[in-house]
């Protein structure tokens, strides 16, 4: 009996000073939420601060201590920023380059991925390995010769150097699409072939209609890359009529060095399409990175 008492008294001793399991779990959850919320604070405060700055008067931007909620709200900062630089022109240039790039990339990438996923051809495995190897290749190695090539073609100060290479696939996105095509059932291909479809017919009528998720991922990734492209735009676009938003912002930074309320308004406007796309297609943003990050 005495030994029994000793044994049963042990867990009691541990439980007495501490909380119950549910309380402990709640406390743990509370701590996790506090840590996460402070992380969220660090993540979102720069954005909130820049939006707040963009709506202040020129004087309030430098007010000490800072005001979080601008009073009155200066919406006209946005109008001023848009007229201080040829904003609509840059917006159109950026939109044009981005949209054409998306079309080129989606077509070339899916065609090549189809060849790697579904067709038998001499050299396929060799070229697949080569393509995977080029994924590791840093783009700056080809930067200077490409510039010289485009210079000789007379393409400097046109959109062509930014657009044309997009029509030649790309290892990363091709791999993404190829991995997706591999998961589609082959029975449908065979059925279509029996019905007399050519390879292109299978690609166009069978594979592409089933590939909306991966096409959406490609669109999102290309949009984000081309919308923010800076180094290439800086090298190839010289006349300010041809500037993209990124180049326009850089120029505006030099002109309006101290007008942070206007610079922030222009920056927010530049980020806005990406933000809108993010909130409307968040799923595809995340799928894209998880797909390539976890499945090596």
């Amino acid at each position, binding site marked *: 009996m005495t030994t029994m008492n000793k044994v049963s008294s042990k867990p009691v001793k541990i439980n007495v000073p501490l909380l119950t399991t549910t309380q402990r779990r709640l406390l743990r959850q509370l701590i*996790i939420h506090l840590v996460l919320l402070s992380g969220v604070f660090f*993540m979102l405060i720069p954005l909130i601060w820049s939006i707040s700055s963009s709506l202040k008067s020129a004087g309030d931007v430098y007010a*000490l201590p800072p005001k979080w909620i601008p009073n009155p709200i200066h919406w006209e900062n946005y109008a001023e920023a848009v007229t201080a630089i040829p904003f609509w022109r840059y917006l159109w240039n950026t939109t044009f380059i981005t949209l054409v790039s998306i079309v080129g990339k989606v077509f*070339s990438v899916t065609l090549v991925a189809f060849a790697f996923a579904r067709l038998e051809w001499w050299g396929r495995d060799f070229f697949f390995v080569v393509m995977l190897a080029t994924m590791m290749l840093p*783009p700056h190695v080809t930067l200077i010769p490409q510039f*010289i090539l485009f210079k000789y073609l007379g393409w400097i100060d046109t959109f062509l150097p930014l657009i044309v290479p997009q029509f030649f696939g790309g290892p990363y996105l091709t791999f993404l699409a190829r991995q997706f095509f591999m998961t589609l059932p082959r029975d449908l291909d065979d059925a279509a072939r029996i019905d007399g479809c050519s390879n292109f017919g299978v690609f166009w009528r069978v594979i592409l209609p089933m590939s909306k998720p991966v096409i959406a991922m490609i669109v999102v990734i290309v949009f984000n890359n081309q919308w923010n492209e800076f180094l290439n735009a800086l090298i190839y676009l010289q006349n300010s009529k041809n500037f993209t938003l990124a180049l326009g912002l850089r120029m505006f930074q030099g002109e309006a060095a101290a007008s942070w309320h206007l610079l922030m308004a222009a*920056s927010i406007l*530049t*980020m806005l399409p990406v933000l809108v796309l993010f909130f409307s297609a968040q799923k595809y943003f995340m799928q894209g990175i*998880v797909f390539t990050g976890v499945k090596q």
Partner: protein
Amino acid sequence: MAIRSLILPRKVKPIRNFDFSRWVRKNKDGWLFASPWIIGFFVWTLGPMLASLGLAFTDWDLISPIQFVGLKNFQMMFKDPLVGQSLKVTIIYALTSVPLNLAVGLGIAMLLNARIIGLRFYRTAFYLPSVLSGVAVALLWRWLFSPEFGLINQGLSLIGIQGPSWLGDQNWALPSLVVMSVWGVGAGAIIYLAGLQGIPTELYEAAEVDGARGWQRFFSITLPLMTPVLFFQLVVGVINALQVFTQAYIMTGGGPNRATLFVILYLYQNAFQYQRMGFASALAWVLFILIMVLTLLIYRSSSSWVYYEGESKSKR
């Protein structure tokens, strides 16, 4: 004659058997479908790479005739202190920002994986900044780091700290860019979260039966099973960190006192401001070799710390 008639049929036969037009017909569609990338590979990748290698041994300003100079560009690199400086800046940045982002990203992912309420909100909030990039983000952070009126120093003054002038201070400019890089940690966190969710819960249950708790569980289950994902992110992270350009160009211009002169920025200045195409190409190859060596080192080291489920468990 006799010998010829003996030999010829044997020689000709395999050629007759090999039907060239049939071979072409069989492969034609594959080549056609893959042609955008195959052509692109030669025109935009292999050709320029070889050209870049050739240019590295020349002097050329794009106007006067091109001149072969042998190893002069590489010899100049040893004399030019800015090459050493740019390599130092770039490597320090990679060695600090990449591990920092891996650790913070994994930490966030583990907190998100703790079956909490509001997961979707947190996931979106952490992920959002990482989709923003480019000049607008660089401007935003320049304003945050502004010495007198920037949010960071104003926040520090609330707790009685006189902050440095960040981007204007040669000791703080590079750390500032490292801090800024953590803003993009969300992408990694989402990838780690997906990896964590793929770890079978039986493993944790089994560990609990064996008496493993908290940190023990982390080091014996979570971390080993996450190493393949961490390994991939390490490789990608290093490659990206070695190619920083936009932040440095917009926020510091390489200064103050060359404290943020990243290699790509110095390459850009040489090629497109001083028109030294040969020297810039040589620089590109040095960075390329640096990237390959680092990637190779990470790969070589991976066998001792990356755990693949297919392998025997005795490896830990």
